[in-house]
């Protein structure tokens, strides 16, 4: 049981795709406990294993830590992936691993996530709103993707012009 420091970019591990994880991995129980302890000790609502130094496909999302949010409560998923997403929106996003910066990113309002729970059940979760954003952000971490990779220049989008004089 340990609270780990949350890695900050430019830690290279944050840009590396995470390896898939075996349920029989002997280190899994202690890693799960460390994830829970670290999230409990942080101001955040979600964490991906690479953020605490383990490049494996494990995320913890618990949006109920934020006032007014419930979602699915505490969710630990191994080998998670996004099956489907729907409803584009722009969100101002920040990340514990990239302090002091936020940017507008394109996300989805609904996200369907598949993964395996620590007790071995394969689950499919339909998430929406804040919880859907959390899953998208954490599953990005598993692919070595930071929100910085998804920044949208809103003004460019809105005002994209034909090249040359019109």
């Amino acid at each position, binding site marked *: 049981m340990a609270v780990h420091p949350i890695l900050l970019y430019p830690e290279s591990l944050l840009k590396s795709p995470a390896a898939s994880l075996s349920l029989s991995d002997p280190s899994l129980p202690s890693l799960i406990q460390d994830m829970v302890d670290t999230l409990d000790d942080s101001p955040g609502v979600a964490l991906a294993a690479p953020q605490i130094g383990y490049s494996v496909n494990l995320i913890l999302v618990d949006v109920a830590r934020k006032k007014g949010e419930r979602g699915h409560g505490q969710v630990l998923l191994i080998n998670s992936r996004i099956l489907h997403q729907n409803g584009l*929106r722009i*969100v*101002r996003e*920040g*990340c514990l691993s990239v302090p002091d910066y936020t940017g*507008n990113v394109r996300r989805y309002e609904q996200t369907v996530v598949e993964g395996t729970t620590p007790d071995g059940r394969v689950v499919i979760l339909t998430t929406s709103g804040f919880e859907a*954003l959390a899953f998208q952000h954490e599953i990005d971490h598993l692919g070595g993707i930071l929100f910085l990779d998804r920044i949208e220049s809103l003004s460019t989008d809105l005002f994209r012009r034909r090249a040359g004089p019109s």
Partner: protein
Amino acid sequence: MDRYAMLTAFGQDRSGIVAALSEGLYQLGCNIEDTCMTRLRGEFAMMVMVRLPAALAPDQLAARLAPHTAPLGLTVLCREVPLQATALEPPSEKPIFMLSVYGADRPGIVAQVARAVADHDGNITDMNTRVVGATDRPVYVMILEIQLPAGRGPESLQEALDRLKPRLGVDITLRAIESVRF
């Protein structure tokens, strides 16, 4: 102690301006901190916050850059930035809104909308305006990003904007941008 300068550069757009400007700054030992650049039609416009080397005074910067910028026809202005204004800011917790205003072009749209925002203690943190549409029927489009004071809802600003709509003959949409940190 570090000294900082704000540099603005503008001139007719062409390829190579950013390269020439940044090479000039690099060769003078300046460090580019934060930058914003855009084009207004065919005009290039850039603002750069620069950390200066010890031997270079802010009022010397524009002249020392001239060998790089003059051949491109760039106008360059510099002034020192107070140290306290250069500190990195943590992300604001204030609610963020996007305000879209558009309609037939006429004088006073920007002034009256910006006044309404200011009267509601809103801070305009980003702004883009364009004249678009057909030449004989120009349409004015303005997109503002606004921060309202913490805990302040958008209702009273929304009401003020609704009153402006018929006066200015524009459509106005105010919408919240959700801000999240994971």
